[in-house]
């Protein structure tokens, strides 16, 4: 099944191949092969502390895997030059469990991705001409519209509520038009309304052609947003396939147990 999938003619895909990664002597990920294509949403579910965060960090190229490879369309990303790898990194975006906004206006936060993609000279000119104001650009406004906060452009990040901040974090991650987006338990601290807004935004992103990976412990959320689901238990990917199948007829009994809510986490 997995083999079939790997050989299929796909649109661009980013993935891990036989990756094992550990901190101190434990294996956080054990022989994991995973991928996400552009235009689909993959949910990674599993008990807390099983390596979902590590999986996402490896995908977003925070650090190289101890064994195995991270590949973009079959190319080993960590074998590239630093410049080439930077180009790959620039096509990725990440939303963390906490918003992690900069101490600046919403506009500045959301515009950051575009800002750093300019050359130094342009940056200086841009900064001088808009001293204090930040980037009043189309991309910023559109990104904020995706999360329903377009009227908050000039607010300071510190004045936002938790839900608003996380929505801005989402806007920030897509404003520079990445190809892949990773979300690490993005709504676990949010109320239902903000959760809904964010899930809608995920749908919008996917429709735009982004490949989205959402790590979540909320089964229902996974059901709502995902095309495919990966189940990560004790560092191993015990189940990986279309959402409907995984939820109704999982192959692995542990997965079944988890989905049925019997596994303690």
């Amino acid at each position, binding site marked *: 099944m997995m083999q079939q999938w790997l050989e299929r003619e796909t649109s661009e895909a980013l993935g891990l191949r036989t990756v094992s990664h550990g901190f101190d002597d434990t294996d956080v990920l054990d022989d994991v092969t995973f991928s996400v294509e552009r235009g689909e949403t993959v949910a990674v579910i599993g008990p807390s502390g099983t390596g979902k965060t590590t999986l996402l960090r490896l995908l977003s190229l925070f650090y190289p895997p101890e064994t195995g490879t991270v590949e973009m369309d079959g190319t080993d990303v960590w074998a590239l030059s630093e410049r080439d790898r930077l180009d790959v990194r620039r096509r990725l975006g990440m939303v963390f469990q906490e918003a*992690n906004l*900069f*101490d600046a206006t919403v506009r500045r936060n959301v515009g950051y991705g575009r800002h750093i993609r300019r050359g130094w000279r342009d940056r200086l000119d841009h900064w001088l001409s808009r001293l204090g104001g930040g980037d009043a650009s189309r991309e910023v406004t559109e990104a904020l519209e995706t999360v329903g906060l377009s009227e908050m452009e000039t607010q300071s990040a510190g004045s936002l509520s938790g839900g608003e901040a996380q929505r801005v974090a989402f806007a920030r991650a897509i404003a520079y038009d990445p190809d892949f987006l990773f979300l690490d338990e993005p709504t676990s601290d949010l109320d239902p309304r903000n959760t809904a807004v964010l899930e809608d935004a995920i749908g919008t992103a996917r429709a735009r052609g982004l490949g989205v990976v959402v790590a979540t412990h909320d089964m229902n959320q996974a059901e709502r947003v995902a095309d495919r689901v990966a189940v990560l238990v004790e560092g191993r990917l015990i189940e990986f396939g279309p959402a409907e199948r995984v939820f109704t007829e999982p192959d692995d009994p542990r997965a079944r147990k988890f989905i049925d809510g019997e596994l303690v986490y």
Partner: protein
Amino acid sequence: MIETVSATATVADGFTPLLVDFPFERNYVESIIRVSLYVSLTAVLISTLVSLPVAMLVGFSEFPGKGFVVALINTGMGFPSVVVGLVVLFAVSNQGPLGTFDLVFTKEAMIISQFVLATPVITGVSLAAVTSVEEGVRDAAYAMGGTRVDVALVTIKEARYGIVTGVLAGLGRAISEVGSVLIVGGNIAGADGTSVTRTLTTAIQLEARQGRFELALILGAVLLALVLLINAIVLRLGGGRV
């Protein structure tokens, strides 16, 4: 000597609206303020340019001898200014390693010694400020495709209030010290009362040495007003949050 205390001295100008009979000539006070500002501001500027990268390095990377550097920063904060002055004097003296640059008794030598005094303070405080920036924010900058430099700039920006506090502390240390600038500068003022290497602090020292404590206090008040003014300007520019 340009003061009203002795019969042969010249008459003082009315210099400020506060003191009807300010006992110093305008040119004298203006020139020592100029020298104080030139020396201390330049030293702090250069020091900041050095301190920030060092603070970033020490805060976020590992290298052999890191513990030594941290100890150096902490010790340096409280290092006696006279000792720094003596070391710099030796270095720039005719017989010292930097003798060819003719720096002894110049403002530039004073800048060097105040640089040595201010850097540990600015580095130490900036180090605390940048390391207290949340790792998540740094990660976010990286995740958005930021290079190491981008992340460093974000960190500095996030830590800006703490860094400014450090810079002001360094400036305070520089502008109010007397030991090093006295030794390397020589407290020189021209015969017409224009300062060559005389600062507010060394001028105060001069008055105090001659037992003219009231005059010393007046200059002290000028120095205090100057420091308050600088602090007010900086905090105003930064939006007032420290």
